[in-house]
C-alpha cells in the first residue's frame, strides 16, 4: 500500500517543514532522533542541544479534506544538559541519542529520552480546563473567610488556553560506562532496555536506582576489544526476547528466560561474506547502524552502510531480502573513509503494515522500498520541493559516464546533507524525515 514510483495510484507529497531556513546551521539545532508515538498523533524530535520538541497532529478539518491534519508544536523542553565528568575530564554531550514513547496509560503522555549516559522519563501533560466557583477560594485564589460562606456551590469546568507541561519523572543514571546507543520499551510496558557500546541493561520503569545487566561483551582485557554493540531492541510481542547488533555485522537474538546474563545468544544472524567483494573496508561497511523489528514481530531489519536487509527470525544464515541503498558509493569507500562519512549511522524504519521500508542517504535523499512489488524510489527533502502538497519527484543518481537530464552524478552529491533519522507513522502514510536541522513531513496523495 505504499506504492513507489509514479504510475501507481500513489504519490508522496510535501506537507510541512519545521526548522530554520538559513544556511548557517547551529550545531545545537541538528536533529538527532525522530519518533512517532503509538497512535501517530504525536511526533517527537530530539536535537544535539538536548532539547525535545513534540508536535501534535491537528484534527482533520472539513475545510481541507485532501490534506490530513498538520503537525504543530505541542511542547518544547530541555531534556538533557551538558555535563562534565570530573573523574575523566571529559564532557558528556547533551545530544539526545534516542527517544522512545511509552504506551499511553492515562491522559498524559510519557516518553524516554537519552543522551550518552542518562535516560530520563518525561511526562507530558496538558491542561485545557480549569475549575471555577470554588467554595473556599475566591476567583483570584485568596481564601474566603469561612464565616462569609453561606451557600454551597458546585465548581464548574471552563475551558482555558491549553497549557502543556513536561516534567521529568524518573532519571535513570550511572548505569552506563560507555555511550548509550539504544533504548527500547518492552512489550510488558513495565521494563525497558538500554544499550551502550559494550553492555545492555534492563530497567524497570519505576525503579531508578537499579538495573540488571543482561549482556556484557566487554573483554577482560580491553586490548582484545574488536567488536562493539551498535543497536538493541525488544521484541514487539515477546517480552523475553530482544536483539542486539554489532559492529561486525552480526545480530544476536537473546531470550531472557535462558539465563540472567544473556551472553550466549539463542540465535545468531550473520550473512556469509562474499569473498569477491572483500576489501579493507568490508568490516566497516558491514557494521550495523540500526536494527528494527517489524510490527508483526516475525521479521527484523538491519541497516549497514550500503544496504538494508530484512531477516526472517527463523532463518539465521542469511537475510531474506537485501535492498541496496546507494551502491554507487562502493567505489568511493576510500574517500568516504577519509572524510569519516563511512562511519555515519543511518537508521531505518518499517511502515505500519510492514510492506515497505525507508532509510536515508546523502544529498538529503531518502529511499523507500516496497517489499511486495520490489520497487524502490529515491526522494529528496529540500526546500525547493516545499510547495504545499507538491508531489515529490523521483530522484536518480547516475552511475555511468552518461548523465541524463535530472540525474545527479555521484561526485556532485553533498555528503554533508545526510538523512540519518526517519520515521513512519504507525498507521498512515505519513513520514517524518530529519534533514540536519529541518524536519520534513510528507504525506501520501491518493489521486
Amino acid at each position, binding site marked *: 500500500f505504499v506504492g513507489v514510483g509514479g504510475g501507481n495510484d500513489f504519490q508522496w507529497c510535501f506537507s510541512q517543514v519545521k526548522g530554520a531556513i538559513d544556511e548557517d546551521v547551529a550545531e545545537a539545532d541538528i536533529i538527532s532522533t525522530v519518533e512517532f508515538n503509538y497512535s501517530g498523533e504525536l511526533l517527537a524530535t530530539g536535537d544535539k542541544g538536548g532539547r525535545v520538541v513534540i508536535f501534535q497532529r491537528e484534527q482533520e478539518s472539513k475545510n481541507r479534506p485532501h490534506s490530513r491534519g498538520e503537525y504543530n508544536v505541542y511542547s518544547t523542553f530541555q531534556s538533557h544538559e551538558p555535563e562534565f565528568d570530573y*573523574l*575523566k*575530564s*571529559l*564532557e*558528556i*554531550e547533551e545530544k539526545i541519542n534516542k527517544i522512545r514513547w511509552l504506551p499511553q496509560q492515562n491522559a498524559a503522555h510519557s516518553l524516554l529520552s537519552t543522551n*550518552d549516559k542518562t535516560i530520563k522519563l518525561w511526562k507530558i501533560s496538558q491542561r485545557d480546563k480549569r475549575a471555577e466557583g470554588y467554595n473556599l477560594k475566591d476567583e483570584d485564589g485568596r481564601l474566603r473567610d469561612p464565616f462569609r460562606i453561606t451557600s454551597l456551590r458546585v465548581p464548574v469546568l471552563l475551558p482555558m488556553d491549553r497549557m502543556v507541561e513536561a516534567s521529568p519523572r524518573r532519571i535513570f543514571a550511572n548505569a552506563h*560506562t*560507555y*555511550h548509550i546507543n539504544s533504548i527500547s520499551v518492552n512489550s510488558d510496558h513495565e521494563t525497558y532496555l538500554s544499550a551502550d*557500546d*559494550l553492555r545492555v541493561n534492563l530497567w524497570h520503569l519505576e525503579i531508578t536506582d537499579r538495573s540488571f545487566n543482561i549482556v556484557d561483551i566487554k573483554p577482560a*582485557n*580491553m*586490548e*582484545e*576489544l*574488536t*567488536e*562493539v554493540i*551498535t543497536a538493541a531492541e525488544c521484541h514487539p510481542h515477546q517480552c523475553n526476547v530482544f536483539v542486539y547488533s554489532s*559492529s561486525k555485522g552480526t545480530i544476536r537474538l537473546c531470550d531472557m528466560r535462558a539465563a540472567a546474563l544473556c551472553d550466549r545468544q539463542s540465535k545468531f544472524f550473520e550473512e556469509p561474506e562474499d569473498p569477491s567483494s572483500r576489501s*579493507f*573496508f568490508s*568490516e*566497516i561497511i558491514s*557494521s550495523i547502524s540500526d536494527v528494527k523489528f517489524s510490527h508483526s514481530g516475525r521479521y527484523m531489519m538491519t541497516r549497514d552502510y550500503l544496504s538494508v536487509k530484512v531477516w526472517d527470525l527463523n532463518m539465521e544464515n542469511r537475510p531474506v531480502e537485501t535492498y541496496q541503498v546507494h551502491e554507487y558509493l562502493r567505489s568511493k569507500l*576510500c574517500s568516504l*573513509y*577519509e572524510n*569519516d562519512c563511512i*562511519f555515519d549511522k543511518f537508521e531505518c524504519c518499517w511502515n505500519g503494515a510492514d510492506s515497505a521500508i525507508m532509510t536515508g542517504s546523502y544529498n538529503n535523499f531518502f529511499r523507500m522500498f516496497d517489499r511486495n512489488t520490489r520497487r524502490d524510489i529515491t526522494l529528496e527533502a529540500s526546500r525547493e520541493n516545499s510547495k504545499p502538497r507538491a508531489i515529490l519527484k523521483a530522484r536518480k543518481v547516475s552511475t555511468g559516464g552518461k548523465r541524463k537530464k535530472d540525474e545527479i552524478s555521484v561526485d556532485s552529491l553533498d555528503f554533508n546533507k545526510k538523512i540519518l533519522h526517519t520515521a513512519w507513522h504507525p498507521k498512515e502514510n505519513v513520514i517524518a524525515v530529519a534533514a540536519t536541522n529541518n524536519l520534513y513531513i510528507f504525506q501520501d496523495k491518493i489521486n
Partner: protein
Amino acid sequence: MFPKGTKRKFSDSGDEPAAGGEDVNQPSSVAVRMLSSYSLQRQSLLDMSLIKLQLCHMLVEPNLCRSVLIANTVRQIQEEMTQDGTWQIMTQALSAANAAAQCSADRLVATEVLCRQTEATQGEQVLKPFPAVGSEGCPAEEEVVVEGEGGVTMSTVSPQAPTSYLPGTFGMDPCWEEENGEDEEEDEDSEECGSGSEEGDSDRLVEDSRTAEQVFGTFEIKNPAPSPDPALEELFSDVDASYYDLDTVLTGMQSAPKMGPYDLLESLSSHGPSPLSSSTSCRSDLNELDHIMEIIVGS
C-alpha cells in the same frame, strides 16, 4: 602524504626495473606497477587510519565504535603486509636507516610507530633495550628481522606521544618507552621487548593473531605510576581501571582535532600530562621532533 616512488618500489617488490628492462618484460612490469599501486594505496590507508586513531575529539569521549573499526582495519593491513613480506622488507629498511642515524624522509613514520609485542614472550628473553636514535646497533634487532613477524601492534598513544614517533626497530619496543621508562621501569621494558623468540614464524603468526595487543591494549599506559599511594588506590579501587587507560590514551592528545601535523605534535610536546597519565615525563628532543615531522608530512 604519498611516499616517493623510488622507495615505495623498493619496499614493495624489492626489485629495481633496469633501464630498458620494461620493454622486454611488459606483463611483469605491469604487474609490478599494479602491485606497487596496491601497496601504495594500502600504505596510505594505513597512515590515514593511524592518524584517525590519534586525532580524537578530546573534549568529549571518542566514539568507541569508530575507534574499534579503525583499529581493526589497521590490524588487517598489518596482517596482510606481514603475510606478503612487505612488512619485513620495510622494517629491514627502517633498521638500516636507523643504523645510519639518519632516517630517509620517505620512510613513512606510521610503520615505525608499529611495534610488535607479544605477551607470550614476556619474560622469556630479556633483550637489551634499543636506544632511541641511531647509535649502536642492537643484536637482537637482527634476530627479530630474520625471525619473521606475526601480528604487529600500535605503539601507545599517550601524552608522551611525540616520542612514539621516534624510529624504533621493528620487533622491539618503541624507543619512546625507553625514554619514558628508563628511570624506573627498565626491567619491564626489557621484558616487553619480547620479539626475538625462537618460535616458528607460523606459530608466531597464529599466536600473535590471538594474543597480539590491539590498539586499545597498546593504548594503555605502559609505565604505570611507580609505587602508587595505597590510600589513593583504595579511593579509586572501585573505578573501572581499564577504561581509564583507554580514556587516558585516547584523550592523551589533548589538542583540538583537525590540526595540521606540525601543530599536533607541537601541542603535544608542550602540553602537560593529563591527570590520569603516567607521571613519567616525556623528554623528546626537539630536533628529533622536527625530523619526525618531516617524515610524517612526507616531504
